[in-house]
């Protein structure tokens, strides 16, 4: 069903999410303890290097202001209301886009995934549409919506939709036949099986899709603001850049990075909560 080039299409295999649901999955590589210390030490080294390089003249301070300067600028920005409005706009574009993509992808994925003929019928179209980079839609977005938030939404939805949709398809296909037969033998009808068997079986995949989609959605939200000029952190970066405020550009970049980290941490926490019964999560506690 998959073509050999679609390895990004199934991040569920490998380290991301066990295809069979019986291997250790995400999060297992990041336990706390000595590794956390090592991680902190690594970040400290990185910051130190960033501080020293511009100060010793190894890198021009015009292009890379030292870490302390960037962080101070960021600290000042945190006190400015406009910054938080931009953060809000970015998060709104991200969240709304992700929500739309999620709803559409889950609905369509369940319908298409449960009907093999429909799945085959749509497979080649999906394989064609999916690899189109969202940024290629920028001219279209401008044409349709100008600098409106809907431009951002279009890009965000398009990019994250496929991430989630593909995962849902795999998830729906990965229902254990024994579980399905058990449900059927106890008289569970089609809808009941979707609710009690297919949905929980697909949930690990759905959440992997959400995690990937959330990351992509943030990238696209910032990209749209940066290139189209719709309001948000991306636009702030563009403005700072044209004003030659290098330290501010870096400060805003750091801010988007921080949002990315928070988003990822949030989705992982959600995964751990919702999938507490799943091997990938419970392995951390029990084994």
């Amino acid at each position, binding site marked *: 069903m998959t073509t050999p080039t679609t390895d990004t299409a199934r991040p569920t295999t490998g380290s991301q999410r066990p295809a069979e649901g019986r291997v250790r999955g995400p999060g297992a590589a990041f336990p706390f303890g000595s590794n956390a210390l090592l991680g902190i030490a690594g970040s400290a080294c990185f910051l130190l290097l960033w501080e020293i390089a511009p100060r010793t003249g190894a890198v021009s301070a015009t292009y890379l202001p030292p870490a302390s300067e960037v962080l101070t600028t960021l600290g000042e920005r945190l006190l400015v209301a406009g910054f938080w409005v931009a953060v809000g706009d970015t998060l709104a574009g991200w969240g709304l886009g992700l929500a739309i993509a999620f709803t559409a992808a889950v609905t369509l994925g369940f319908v298409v995934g449960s009907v093999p003929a429909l799945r085959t019928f749509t497979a080649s179209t999906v394989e064609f549409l999916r690899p189109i980079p969202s940024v290629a839609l920028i001219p279209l977005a401008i044409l349709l919506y100008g600098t409106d938030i809907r431009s951002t939404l279009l890009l965000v939805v398009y990019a994250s939709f496929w991430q989630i949709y593909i995962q849902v398809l795999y998830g729906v296909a990965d229902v254990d036949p024994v*579980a399905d037969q058990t449900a059927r033998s*106890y008289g*569970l009808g089609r809808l009941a099986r979707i609710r009690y068997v297919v949905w929980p079986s697909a949930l690990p995949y759905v959440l992997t899709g959400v995690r990937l989609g959330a990351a992509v959605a943030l990238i696209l939200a910032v990209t749209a603001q940066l290139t189209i000029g719709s309001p948000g952190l991306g636009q702030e970066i563009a403005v700072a850049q044209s004003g030659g405020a290098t330290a501010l550009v870096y400060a805003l970049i750091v801010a988007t990075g921080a949002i990315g980290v928070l988003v990822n941490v949030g989705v992982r926490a959600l995964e751990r909560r919702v999938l507490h019964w799943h091997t990938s999560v419970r392995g951390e506690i029990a084994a």
Partner: protein
Amino acid sequence: MLDVNGVQKIYRGKDREVEAVRDLTFRLEEGELACLVGPSGCGKTTLLKCIAGLLKPTSGSVEVAGKAVTGPPRDMSVVFQEYGRSLFSWLTVQGNVELPLKEKKLSKERRRTLVTEALEAVGLADSARSYPWQLSGGMQQRVAIARAIAYEPRVLLMDEPFAAVDAQTRADLEDLIRGLWQRFSMTVLFITHDIDEAVYLGQRVLVLSSSPTVVQDDVAVDLPAERDQLTTRSDQRFTELRARVYSEIQNAKNGQAASAPAAT
């Protein structure tokens, strides 16, 4: 209660056909406990799925309580060979046992009573809130059995339910099954490949031949109703019955071995 008439099942693959069972006919009376033995791969699971309405026989028919089986019958439960995969790991033990009852549209109170009763009957009252994967293999199998009896079936099908547990657990579970059968007066078809188990448990042992599968023999087990792992198994009669079933299975194999060279 359960009528199997000339059931044949052929699996049709792309370029290959497998005749899993050729021609099976037998009948279980209401309240009977029969064991079905046969060599591995002879089509026991296939037959079970045909009876459970999960597979359509290629020819022949199955009737439960006089009604032809076209889909999963309402008053039948099945305990599958792969109990680990048959339990839903996202539901607690209680949730697993209760789910089929919800679909039966029973009231909440009635469901609670049935779940508690079933879990008590298999000795798992304390584990209701655990998840199946927190339990040992033998306990998981008991959850699957509890789920089956909570459904209040008139017919209970079990597919090699104890194949994967240790000898001691197995003996306990065998006694559990006999106890449940007597208590809930169900018709039970118990599939196994273990001859001793079949004779110990059943009132009757159906012996299947190896492929192409037919009913090789139908042995009545005239042991006393009260059975005990120690005394029953050392009973003279038990040994005789066991020898009989054993030799029938050997016959089945030899029959095939004798005819195989002639066919080529």
